[in-house]
């Protein structure tokens, strides 16, 4: 049975539920526990949301690509999307956030700190700022990213199989 799945997605928020459902089905077909299926689906969800929010889609060929691999001991989710110089601030923030999360011994501490910070912001402030730290805490995943050729951002999350 194939232990990986690749989903090529239009950068449209309505596509997210379909990705969640397909990913969920794929994970369940590998007899993973409910908790693992939920956690990895959450990781995929949050990463694809960011891909759509912060990606730059200048032509219909530009997509968000979600790759999920089930290894012997871990599961890797990679989400790629095009970016350009207008999103470099976001990339810097992404880098800072990932480093900040890594600076905590326990991702739970990072999550609590971010909850406190976000809870004090104005009610109508749209920004969440919780997605990545949620991936680390609930998804128990290690985050990383790099910029591929042609300005393709690759964000990955690796979680151990329990």
């Amino acid at each position, binding site marked *: 049975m194939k232990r990986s799945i690749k989903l090529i997605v239009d950068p449209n928020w309505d596509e997210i539920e379909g990705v969640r459902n397909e990913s969920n089905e794929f994970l369940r077909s590998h007899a993973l526990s409910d908790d693992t299926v939920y956690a990895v689906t959450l990781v995929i969800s949050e990463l694809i949301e960011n891909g759509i929010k912060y990606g730059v889609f200048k032509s219909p060929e530009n997509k968000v690509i979600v790759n999920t691999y089930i290894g012997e001991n871990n599961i890797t989710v990679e989400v790629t999307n095009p970016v350009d110089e207008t999103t470099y601030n976001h990339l810097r923030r992404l880098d800072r956030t990932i480093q900040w999360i890594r600076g905590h011994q326990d991702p739970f501490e990072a999550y609590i700190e971010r909850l406190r910070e*976000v809870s004090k912001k104005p009610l109508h402030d749209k920004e969440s700022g919780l997605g990545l730290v949620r991936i680390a805490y609930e998804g128990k995943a290690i985050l990383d990213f790099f910029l591929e050729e042609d300005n393709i951002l690759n964000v990955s999350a690796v979680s151990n199989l329990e």
Partner: protein
Amino acid sequence: MEKAETFTSSLLTIEVKENETSFNIRWTGISIEREPTRFITPVLVDVIKKSSDRNKRIILDFRELAYMNSSTITPVIKILERAKRGETQIEVVYQKSLKWQDLIFSALEIFQTNDRRVEIKGL
């Protein structure tokens, strides 16, 4: 007598039921909208005002919610932070046996008050 109002946005439904002592806000479906704050915040702010006027407790019941994205958690924690600093009586109820709910909602105990005026309850 119970009064009920239902609010739906995409795949999320919020049912607000008022009884003699409380406003019960039951969340069902999944919340994955890009800006759920636009939908959720006015509902919660309205209930907070009414609960204050009528001296009733607010119960946010998430037990039947299947998933919420991080943008959904945001208005909820802002309301809890304001409740903690103010006088609103508010209770968050979640299903402890669901690991994801336990992870998200137990963390909200940082907003709990000593007198349980703001309370986070895993059932």
